[in-house]
């Protein structure tokens, strides 16, 4: 088969992957950032210790993270169907991708926020900051470079997950690789897909590194 005929298809599936991963990351940040902040604040050494809440959140996060993604994908089918009306296709894949990435990203947020020096938080308190002001003006802005790297890390994991989601009809590059490259022995397609995924991952990492370095004033 001529690779030239594949190019439009490759392009289209690349866009699908970017769409799935991009939207999932967006939702992951929206949901995972507050969850990570909550984990940090409720910690026994946190700004507002809530040991019970912290243990419950921590348990849920660990539970979600211990499930292999492929199983999560299947388990979530009824939920996905209820939420977006279908369990097949790129849009439906966003649901399990987000749910898999939120706990991961929340832990990344937690460990990043923990690196903000205790003294900075005390200085903020000594100036009369509320908890919300301390979070929005100190904790998050001070750890922004780390958070950006965390988002890049999450994006990369999601690229991997999205390839897996392709196996159950999610679409995107992974789907292409498995259906044509693996099942129909079109080795070139497999090869090109792998290259594209590699480029995507490298690109995200490079962009993340550059952005974090640019933002960091330390």
């Amino acid at each position, binding site marked *: 088969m001529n690779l030239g005929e594949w190019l439009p298809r490759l392009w289209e599936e690349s866009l699908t992957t970017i769409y799935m991963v991009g939207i999932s990351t967006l939702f992951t940040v929206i949901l995972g950032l507050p969850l990570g902040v909550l984990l940090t604040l409720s910690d026994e050494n946190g700004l507002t210790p809530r040991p019970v809440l912290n243990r419950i959140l921590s348990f849920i996060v660990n539970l979600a993270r211990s499930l292999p993604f492929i199983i999560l994908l299947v388990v979530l089918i009824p939920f996905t169907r209820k939420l977006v009306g279908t369990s097949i296709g790129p849009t439906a894949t966003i649901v399990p991708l987000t749910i898999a990435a939120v706990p991961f990203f929340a832990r990344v947020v937690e460990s990043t926020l923990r690196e903000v*020096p205790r*003294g*900075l938080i*005390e*200085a*903020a*308190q*000594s*100036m*009369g*900051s*509320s908890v919300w*002001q301390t979070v929005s*003006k*100190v904790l998050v*802005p*001070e750890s*922004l470079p780390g958070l950006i790297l965390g988002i890049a890390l999450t994006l990369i994991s999601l690229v991997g997950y999205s390839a897996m989601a392709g196996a159950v009809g999610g679409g995107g590059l992974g789907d292409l690789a498995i259906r044509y490259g693996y099942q129909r022995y079109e080795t070139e397609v497999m090869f090109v897909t792998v290259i594209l995924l590699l480029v995507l991952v490298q690109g995200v990492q490079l962009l993340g590194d550059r952005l974090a370095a640019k*933002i*960091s*004033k*330390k």
Partner: protein
Amino acid sequence: MIKIENVSKSFIDKKSAVHALHDVSLEVGKGQIYGVVGKSGAGKSTLIRCVNRLEVPDQGRIWVDGEEITALDADSLRKARQKIGMIFQQFNLLGQRTSSENIAYPLEIAGIPKPERDARVKELLNLVGLENKADAYPAQLSGGQKQRVGIARALANHPKVLLSDEATSALDPATTDSILELLADLNRKLGLTILLITHQMEVVKKVCDHVAILENGYLVESGSILELIGDPLSHLSKAFFPPIQEELLDPLATQAAITFLGKAADEPILASMMRKFEVEVNFLGGNIQQIGKYRVGQLQVEFKGPETKEALTYLEDKGLRVEVRK
């Protein structure tokens, strides 16, 4: 301005309890620069952190500017803290904000509108001499410059009280001096009351007018520097004028420490004493120090002769503090 009454604080950890403060009371008057000195672990950091309730005392009460800090609810405490500036050993500046933005932080917290904020930040940068570092990030500043930003930030909301938690301990001697000068200057210009803690006697000597000494969580001494230094038995006096070692002393003579304060230091009292009385004087040691605004001298002297008692009385009559050691 700051009143600390019977404050105790312990830290209980799984293995042991540490009693950081035992029934400490002290009062800082308006416009004073009050130094709390002690070795590390003496409880001074805990004490100053109790004043703005970064640490909650187990017992006792604290007032700042008439407001009982230890009785405030969370909301009122935040309001009160906006009027209590604090500076730190590690500066604690926000690394992602410029000097200006750091100084603007407490103003944002207090809900001051942007135009006023900008004007105030400019004023403060001028006050601490950093007009040309407005847009520099902390990583681009020297230690002394960082502490100047810290001071400007602490003063942003016009506090009446400034708490200084080892503010010069991370700085070299020359920079320490310039920061202390700035603090003394602010104290004069703004009538700012300063409570500072330090392990450096030099800091007390340079800027404080009052001092308290903490040892293992106990307040062993407090009061005005002038009074304490005039008392040769005080911890403070001993820190500045270490007593002569026993083995050097003549067992037949009378040893005394003579302290000169202020004017007495400038008059030739000893010379006239030696003319008037039949007494032999042997100088063992002595020095004169500038302590805050005061010149203070102390001589360690041995007296021998029939009129020793009369000579000592004469010195006391002339306004010198005489402490007979034997």
